[in-house]
């Protein structure tokens, strides 16, 4: 499924001006879009979920620190990949960050080539996540169009029951099963049972 995506945007949250300014300049110098924020709250107020990207996040900040923001994003179902940057990489912090799915945890000052590499990976990851989510949403929409009876038949099909078995289990005629089956295929926009099973298994 190919969709036209807006250009990725790199978000940067660090309370230190010099770090924000220099990283912004660096990322811009590689031709990427970047937006920086002084605080976690500023980022939350301005984050645009429609645009793919990643988040470079300082660990130690007043009011809401990086790890707290990571938890807050989870709570809000925002799955933007995060690269942590930290002035003193304490092991408990980095362990926490990784457990919650961070892409990396870089200790300041870090090798910028490594950062740029991680940005690329993170953006790729975000685009993947978005495609998967879109596919799943799409699939869910199709499933939502099925009637309760069709859903029952669908679950029998994916559990590899034959028409005959299914008819028996639901106490209806094999002919009716046939009708349900063809409607399901149409609504799910597939040509064969194999395709249908593959589609549901992948998600």
């Amino acid at each position, binding site marked *: 499924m190919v969709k036209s995506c807006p250009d990725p945007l790199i978000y940067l949250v660090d309370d230190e001006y*010099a770090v924000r300014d220099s990283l912004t300049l660096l990322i811009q*110098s590689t031709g990427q879009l970047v937006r920086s924020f002084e605080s976690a709250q500023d980022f939350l107020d301005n984050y645009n979920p429609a645009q793919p990207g990643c988040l470079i996040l300082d660990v*130690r900040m007043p009011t809401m620190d990086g790890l707290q923001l990571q938890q807050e994003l989870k709570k809000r179902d925002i799955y933007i990949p995060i690269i942590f940057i930290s002035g003193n990489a304490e092991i408990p912090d980095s362990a926490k960050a990784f457990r919650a799915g961070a892409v990396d945890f870089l200790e300041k000052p870090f090798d910028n080539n490594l950062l740029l590499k991680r940005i690329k990976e993170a953006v790729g990851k975000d685009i993947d996540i978005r495609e998967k989510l879109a596919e799943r949403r799409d699939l869910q929409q199709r499933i939502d169009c099925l009637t309760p009876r069709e859903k029952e038949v669908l679950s029998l099909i994916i559990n590899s029951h034959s028409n005959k078995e299914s008819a028996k289990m639901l106490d209806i005629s094999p002919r009716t099963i046939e009708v349900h089956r063809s409607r399901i295929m149409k609504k799910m926009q597939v040509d064969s049972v194999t395709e249908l099973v593959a589609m549901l298994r992948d998600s």
Partner: protein
Amino acid sequence: MVGEIREVEGLRRDGMVVPIDLSVAEFSINHISYYTAIVRDVSLRKIQEQQDKAHLDELAHVTRIGLMGEMASGIAHEINQPLTAIVSYSQACINFIRAEKPDLAQLGNALNKTLEQALRAGQIIHHMRDFVKSKTRHRSTVDVNSLIQISISLCNSDLKHNNIIQELKLANNLPGIAIDGVQIEQVLLNLIRNSIDALKDLPLEIPRKLTIHTYLNQDNFIECRVKDNGKGIAEADQEKILTPFFTTKPDGMGMGLSICNSIIRAHHGVMSFSSYPGKGTTFYFTLPTQGKING
């Protein structure tokens, strides 16, 4: 001059100049005024005082090195910030140069910023070195407010990490005074760090505030107050808090405040505090603005 003791210099018969205390008393008999002058050679006391000062300088130096050790991680964090910026600015410069038509204005701008950050990192290191360097120091004219700014900047990362809001109310009419700047800074750092310790256990919903206030008091002394709204000092501990080796901290030596007290006294000032358990603590010290400071 009647009734007060003056420190003057006297010449001994062997030609040596010695410090003497001179006091004059007045009395009258049958309406006639008489004066008695008492002159006392205080060389011995002066020597004692100097030994005391050397001893204090030494002790202050040792505890200062310990203090730096405790603060090392926070200071490393402060140095890492400009270093990170330098690395990123330089890489951006390299990228600019590689462009087909390098934008020289942009390049120059980024290089200037690199320079600024390098100087900033250097300043922190210079300062650290001055702080631990020598034990015997000369007093020089110092602006107390600038000592406060420096002390706060060294604690910045701890303040930030613990969500402490700092408020500086620094009077702009303070005269420069002749003090040992490093020792007074040591006092300030001790007080600020004690406040951070008192504040960091506060529940999150209470805003943590550190206020530093300077002003010229009515006796023409500079007065400095370091105030927090932390957990306060338990009443039973209050009378012991300034004595050596008393500590409420699990890894404390109990030297911090007692040295601070000695440093302030050696500067002919006074240190004191008021604390209310559950409400907060204010430490304050005074420093004379003229005269007396020459020890």
